[in-house]
């Protein structure tokens, strides 16, 4: 094989790869991409290898393995060699959720996180979570723990619709 080093196509392959990675949906909340969620931290080339850095959401989130596998599938389909690196520090926070991610969540019927993760009191009341359906601010917490690790269950006092809340983390 000829050893012609050609930089330009590599860059293009990387652009394509980045686009493909940016489209990967969250396995539990498919309206969100891993990028919206902030789980996909970076895509870099180190020593001729693509390194995709990911940060897990919750310690025991069962979707993490599915996410990493989806990223590996994209890497395997690319002509560039690559691997996934998991980092815990700094820890993932809902503050990393993109603006478009928050909007998509709300349109999907999941209330996006209210406020910042570190500014809530330990045992006090939660901030009001607006209903994603009718926008009423009169809602109540049904359970701190919902259908997935990242969600709590709320109900609207006005339209009575129960809804998921993507809780601050």
């Amino acid at each position, binding site marked *: 094989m000829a050893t012609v080093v050609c930089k330009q196509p590599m860059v293009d392959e990387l652009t394509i790869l980045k686009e493909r990675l940016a489209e990967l949906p969250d396995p539990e909340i498919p309206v969100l991409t891993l990028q919206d969620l902030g789980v996909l931290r970076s895509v870099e080339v180190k020593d001729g290898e693509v390194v995709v850095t990911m940060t897990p959401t919750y310690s025991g989130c069962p979707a993490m393995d599915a996410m990493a596998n989806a990223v590996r599938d994209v890497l395997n389909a690319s002509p560039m060699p690559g691997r996934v690196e998991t980092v815990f520090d700094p820890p993932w926070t809902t503050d990393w959720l993109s603006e478009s991610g928050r909007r998509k969540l709300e349109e999907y019927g999941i209330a996006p996180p209210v406020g910042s993760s570190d500014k809530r009191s330990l045992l006090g009341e939660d901030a009001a979570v607006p209903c994603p359906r009718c926008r009423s601010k009169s809602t109540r917490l049904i*359970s701190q723990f919902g259908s997935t690790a990242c969600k709590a269950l709320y109900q609207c006092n006005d339209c009575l619709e129960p809804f998921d809340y993507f809780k601050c983390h």
Partner: protein
Amino acid sequence: MSVDNSQDLFEFALRLGDDALTLGHRLSEWTAHAPFLEEDIALGNIALDLVGRARLLLDYAGKVEDAGRSEDQLAYLRDAREYRNLLICELPRGDFADTMARQLLVDAFEVPYFEALTKSNDRTLAGIAGKAIKEVRYHLRHSAGWVTRLGDGTDESREKIAGALERVWGYAAEMFETDATEQRLVDQGIAVQREPLKAAWDETIQTVLSQATLTVPDADWQVTGGRTGDHTEHLGFLLAELQFVQRAYPGLSW
């Protein structure tokens, strides 16, 4: 200066991993048995946080030990005497009041503990603590809410939670013991001194129990021994269930 602390570090990661694994397993026993659906999901979620934390810590312990043991081998192939968890984590789930009383005592400890561990010089432990702290804050809100509701509820719920607190109380002291192994790691800025966290714990417990119109138990007994492998008889039964598949079919994988 370079001290070989790998033996201590292995032991420490194992302890924290075993705490999370045994308590997570106890909570997972509620799956499909909780009083109502939302609570079933809540206990399952908390169990998942704890088992996830256990995986990270046991994986790290295996790497530090450098003897080729994976997180699974550490979880499934050690006998009770080799487990290093706090006794409070292995106690049977009992009834719902027993589960919530134990959970409150542990959660109220884990909040200040993991807050402090995020400052560890060991980047892996600090990172794991950074994830854990966000989760334990939710756990504490959950257990504190239930202890309050049970204590300030009916005569029966009050009697049950008061009895449960009495029964578990003497197991709390072990959380505040720093032995020589952990002390060496504290001196290196890796582990957290446990005794000073008692004041914050006392305050949280006092706040919750007074909301619950309950009094703090004045039990004068305490039981310890988990860190040296001296467990209650309950751990063997827990492990029999947890480890059954790997013991019956060694090396089986999904």
